[in-house]
């Protein structure tokens, strides 16, 4: 058996922005999605919260500020206080959901975003690899030993993270966006191959957000989408393709009581999220299914690209 997580993810890259704005202030903020998701309304995300936030004015700005707690984020005062003091140019945050069973493990070691000591990348995952227990140890040969020993938790997501790091020439260096995108695609290819070797052919969403603090690579993908084990308890959640949206523009700001991106050409900021942060999602765009999105902060602005992900 395995813990099947669904979760909600959020990534931001751009102009410095108080983290509180993204986590709490909007009418469909990430924290609200933990107990009232609009696009996954058969499931709650009550197994904890985690975030990595890069603040260029902080001590050692290349290292992200970290907050993780198994407490419910909506009742976590520390999170509220801290998030109103941190203004971030890059953020990856995650609320974790698990199936309601005695076998799910709610623990600090299972909280996203994952970040092995000494590395520059973090990862958050929205989805789950069905029958992961059958394939877990076949992944060992694809993960560098020095990275494998960092794995502490029981999630499929931490293995995906280790697998991506293992695809990089230097897992401890700062990869450029192209190398990072290739590493993510390479890891997904390995997962597909290992699944096939083990006869695993049921729907397994892998919406990922991987970030170095300067760039974000996100995927909207499901292996074997549309195929489910009989009597599957997650069926209603997984019948629609797991959602991913983005909003792009100048800066994310509140005007006349509503939040949105200001116009800018070229763009300077992007938010990527499992679902729009506002109930009015008319200015949000849906990431196409089976695609990879890359965003990078450059002196000229934000470089942004969406491409088909055929792994």
């Amino acid at each position, binding site marked *: 058996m395995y813990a099947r997580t669904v979760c909600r993810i959020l990534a931001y890259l751009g102009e410095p922005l108080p983290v509180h704005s993204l986590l709490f202030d909007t009418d469909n903020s990430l924290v609200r999605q933990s107990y009232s998701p609009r696009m996954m309304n058969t499931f709650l995300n009550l197994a904890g919260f985690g975030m990595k936030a890069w603040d260029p004015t902080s001590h050692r700005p290349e290292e992200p500020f970290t907050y993780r707690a198994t407490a419910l984020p909506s009742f976590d005062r520390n999170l509220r206080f801290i998030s109103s003091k941190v203004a971030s140019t890059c953020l990856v945050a995650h609320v974790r959901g698990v199936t309601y069973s005695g076998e799910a493990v709610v623990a600090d070691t299972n909280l996203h975003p994952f970040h092995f000591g000494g590395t520059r990348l973090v990862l958050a995952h929205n989805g789950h690899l069905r029958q992961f227990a059958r394939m877990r140890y076949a992944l060992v040969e694809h993960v560098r030993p020095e990275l494998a020993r960092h794995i502490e938790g029981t999630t499929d997501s931490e293995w995906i993270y280790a697998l991506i790091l293992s695809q990089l020439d230097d897992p401890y260096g700062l990869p450029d966006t192209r190398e990072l995108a290739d590493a993510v695609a390479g890891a997904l290819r390995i997962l597909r191959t290992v699944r096939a070797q083990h006869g695993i052919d049921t729907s397994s969403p892998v919406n990922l957000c991987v970030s170095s603090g300067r760039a974000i690579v996100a995927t909207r993908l499901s292996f074997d*989408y549309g195929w489910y084990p009989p009597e599957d308890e997650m069926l209603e959640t997984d019948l629609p393709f797991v959602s991913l949206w983005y909003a*792009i523009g100048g800066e994310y700001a509140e005007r006349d009581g509503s939040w949105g991106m200001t116009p800018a050409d070229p763009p300077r900021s992007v938010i990527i999220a499992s679902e729009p942060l506002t109930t009015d999602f008319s200015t949000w765009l849906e990431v196409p299914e089976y695609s990879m999105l890359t965003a990078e902060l450059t002196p000229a602005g934000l470089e942004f690209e969406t491409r088909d992900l055929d792994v």
Partner: protein
Amino acid sequence: MSDRETVEFLASVPLLAGRGEADLIELARLMRRRTVPEGQYLWRQGDRARELVFIVDGVVSKLLDLSGDRTAELGRSGRRDVVGEIGLLDGQGHAMSMRVAETATVLALGRQDFAALLAGQHPSAFRLKRHLAELLTARLRSQLEHLAESLGGRPSQDPAAALAELEECKAPDSRYVRRMTTFHDFDPLALWGFLTSGHYVRCPPGRVLLAEGTPSTAFYLTINGAVEKVLVRGDRRIRVGLAGPGKAFGYESLIDGRPSPVTAITRERACLLVIPHDLFGRLFEGEDAVSRGFLDVIQKDLMTALRETLRPRARLAASV
């Protein structure tokens, strides 16, 4: 506008074709007429849908909101056009903003009155459902044509190219099918009737099931897997929809008799329910519980398709 003129106007609206005079008089009584000056909005994108609107005169501009306070005009509607039905039918917010481009007189029909017209097993309800399917199909074609224009050129798929061979397979477990949102509202007997009205096939990924520009020979419903609906021009392509479990494709041709507006390719291996052309006709024109469910499936699918088609339009407009 007198009551008589209102009834005469309603009689000329294609969506209401075939309704008797008594029906139209009753309908006219339910409608609220108003004149909206140029520049004002009938509603904005995302607003909760409360009414659908018949345009008596004037011109209304359809606007899609884009990121960064921008909008794109997707088209215009005028006399005898109906707007606002999608938000009313699927309960989501309005898909587009409607701004009056030339002062317009409209007749508005409220949500509950519209729902009442569609309810029950009366022949006029079936007729309205069919007219709606035709109207939504025409809208979908229009949106797809705009997208295709953005790609330039002509369809890349050779219409003479062989379509995928389909291997027969067994019917799915009805307990699985019942859990799909598409079939939540079906009564069990009607669902059984629907599921046994066609046959089941299996197809590997990457196979063409239907080519743009050729007539479709069947209605397809994805049971397992996923089928991409795409527009292809040379090495450029736009995915305009993804038919996963419970989603249909191939029916536009069967509704309006024109060639398929999209190419359908399996993205994953797929198990499909296939309802051939002649059986489709019987279900579409029928007036029993199975036909009612079938028309509901098509209606829901068309609305999803229309909203999905707006996604690439928004992305394209945003990138200009």
